């Protein structure tokens, strides 16, 4: 037992140190920004895994909530001239508030209905942002100031890394606490959980609000770095990408989903064009088509994702064998 925990902490430590020193090796600001984008999608995928993998609420409103955070910050900065920090705080709270409203409205809705409702919400929001161009400048989007004057790609990298570690740490703490236990119990059987004394209403809304706050925060920070937010970021296909990342990483593991998003993001970016032996190949949209195929086969043949089983094997080998051995016995007796 002790050895397993040690191994985990050591691995986490090594990973963190690697990520901290990575900018010195990446050098070009293009590569740095790709990795920073990877961090952003890692947060999104992990929080989506918390919401749908652990709590079983299939929301398609994640990108919309990111957009709410970013648009709030952008409009505040543009029209009232507030500092990015104020914009980020208000944007985060705004996303949380909208999450609270959606969470409360959707309490009675079951899985497929919740998915439909959140799709409808995102689409209404996107259409409204496109149409009310006198406030939002339509598809041109709203510009955002940089986080602080003279920020470098390296600075942005560290900001996003800190955000990733902070939110992942928070989400891990939540998942391991009574909160995580309760939402998982609700996912398996809501009525049974209620009968055992879980305040179903409170926790269902709470998990929605918490993930909304997280994506609102990272959305408003990230788009301050990108410098512009457009309604296109809220398209259903963007949401599909986040879901695909989370599923490929492992929907029931926060770290798996985050790693899945990070690696897929960078992988997709690297596949944009390839030079092999002087052959110059542009993949364009084909890489996403292949990615969609990978998503479907992952769902069909590896429901726990592609990365999560590997991570699990690495850290929990002894425990896994132990439980498997224990499980076999009663099954054989029954047979």
């Amino acid at each position, binding site marked *: 037992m002790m050895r397993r925990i040690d191994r985990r902490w050591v691995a986490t430590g090594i990973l963190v140190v690697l990520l901290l020193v990575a900018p010195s090796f990446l050098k070009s600001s293009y590569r740095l920004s790709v990795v920073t984008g990877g961090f952003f999608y890692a947060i999104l995928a992990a929080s989506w895994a918390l919401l*749908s993998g652990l709590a079983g609420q299939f929301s398609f409103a994640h990108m919309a909530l990111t957009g709410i955070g970013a648009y709030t910050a952008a409009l505040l900065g543009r029209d009232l001239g507030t500092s990015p920090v104020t914009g980020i705080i208000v944007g985060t709270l705004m996303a949380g508030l909208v999450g609270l409203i959606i969470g409360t409205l959707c309490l009675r809705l079951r899985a497929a209905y919740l998915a*439909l409702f959140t*799709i409808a919400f995102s*689409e209404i929001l996107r*259409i*409204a942002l496109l149409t009310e161009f006198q406030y939002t400048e339509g598809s041109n989007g709203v510009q955002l100031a940089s986080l602080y004057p003279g920020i470098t790609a390296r600075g942005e990298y560290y900001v996003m890394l800190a955000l990733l570690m902070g939110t992942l740490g928070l989400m891990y703490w939540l998942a391991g606490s009574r909160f995580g236990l309760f939402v998982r119990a609700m996912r398996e059987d809501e009525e049974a959980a209620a009968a055992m004394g879980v305040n179903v209403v409170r926790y269902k809304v709470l998990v929605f609000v918490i993930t909304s706050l997280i994506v609102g925060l990272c959305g408003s920070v990230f788009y301050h770095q990108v410098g512009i937010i457009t309604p296109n970021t809220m398209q*259903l296909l963007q949401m*599909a990408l986040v879901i695909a990342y989370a599923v490929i990483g492992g929907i029931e593991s926060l770290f798996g989903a985050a790693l899945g998003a990070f690696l897929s993001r960078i992988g997709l970016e690297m596949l944009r064009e390839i030079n092999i032996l002087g052959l110059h190949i542009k993949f364009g949209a084909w890489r996403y088509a292949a990615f*969609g195929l990978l998503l479907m086969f992952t769902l069909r043949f590896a429901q726990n994702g592609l990365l999560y089983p590997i991570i699990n094997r690495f850290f929990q080998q002894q425990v896994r064998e132990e439980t498997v051995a224990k499980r076999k016995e009663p099954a054989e007796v029954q047979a």
Partner: protein
Amino acid sequence: MGLHPTVIVWGLLAGPIWGLIGAWGLPRVYRQKGLGASGAGTVGALAGFVAGPLLLAPLWYFTPELTRRWSVGVAALAALELYTLFAILYPDNLCVTNRDYVLNQVASGLTIGFIYALMAVGLTLIYSVQGVISFAHGQFYMVGGYVSYYLLQLLTDFNPIIGVPVAGLATLIIGMAFERTFLRPMHLGQIERAGEYAILVTFGFGFFLEYTTLAAVGPFSQKTGPFINAGSFVLGPLRLLPNRLVAAAVGIGLILALLYLIRYTWLGKGLRAVSQDKQAAAVSGVNPLTMNTLAFGIGTMLAGMSGATLIPVFTWVPWVGATAAVRSFVIIVLGGLGAIPGALFGGLIIGLVQALGAGCYPDPSKGAAYKEAFGLVIFALVLLWRPTGLFGREQ
């Protein structure tokens, strides 16, 4: 109209406030008198909204039995009142001043509504047999349109109508192949958490189809030639577009064919049997797995056919499916999941709402952009208020 703004503000506020009082109070009154309170909230809300205490007080005192007639009646009153309010606020709007314009909007909404219904009927058929909402439905619609487009690139002299059966065949095959590979394991119990798997795998397939098409045909907008080259067709005050009329006729024909198939053929009986009770169907010699595959295939075929019907009317891009899919979700939830007549009515209602909403929105340039949003607002209300829809089976 010389109404003082204060009156308008109070008029606007009074309705919702009385509506809230009605929604909160009326079910309590009914329960206190030991009567069934189903529908009391709805009727209370609408009655309070329409006439405030004038209508709430008699309801409170006499507590009549609230049949469907009551809810329809108060809903109609509410609609009338909203229209009057709209007319007072925007006296110059075309929808207030020009009756022929309204009639034209209604006609064009109903015309397009039949095609919307055709696509939604496919989705609701899949749900009624499989219990799965296909999140790839919009992409089948998109693929159907492209199949028709490329067929007509080969056969340039033909009418676009020949694209419809070919697109139907192509999407039928794709749909059945997908069902066989990815959804059948779910029905065989090989997959944990079937409900979530169904959402994700259909969504993933839609993602795959959309990007494959994008990679293959490129992000350009395309359109086939029209069904008929003719000026608008005048009927009394109505000016109808012949191209859309043909599309609507194709839609009506296909829906009738589907209804015949479902009602009078052995296949239709099998599909209905599986949708009612899988095990009983299996006992009577209907293979539920085959019916699942066929239902999915027929559903996607209808989506593909409606795509092929609409590509001569609208322009086509690889991401055209998302909007169409969302529209179909709206329609089937409005009509009740799994109810085919519901999907038909839902399609017509959404067609109407879109046409009137886009035509009457105070700022015409924005009205067209909000076209889809009007349906979505109704959808959100229906989901929250009556998730079983208008024709839905109680779960």
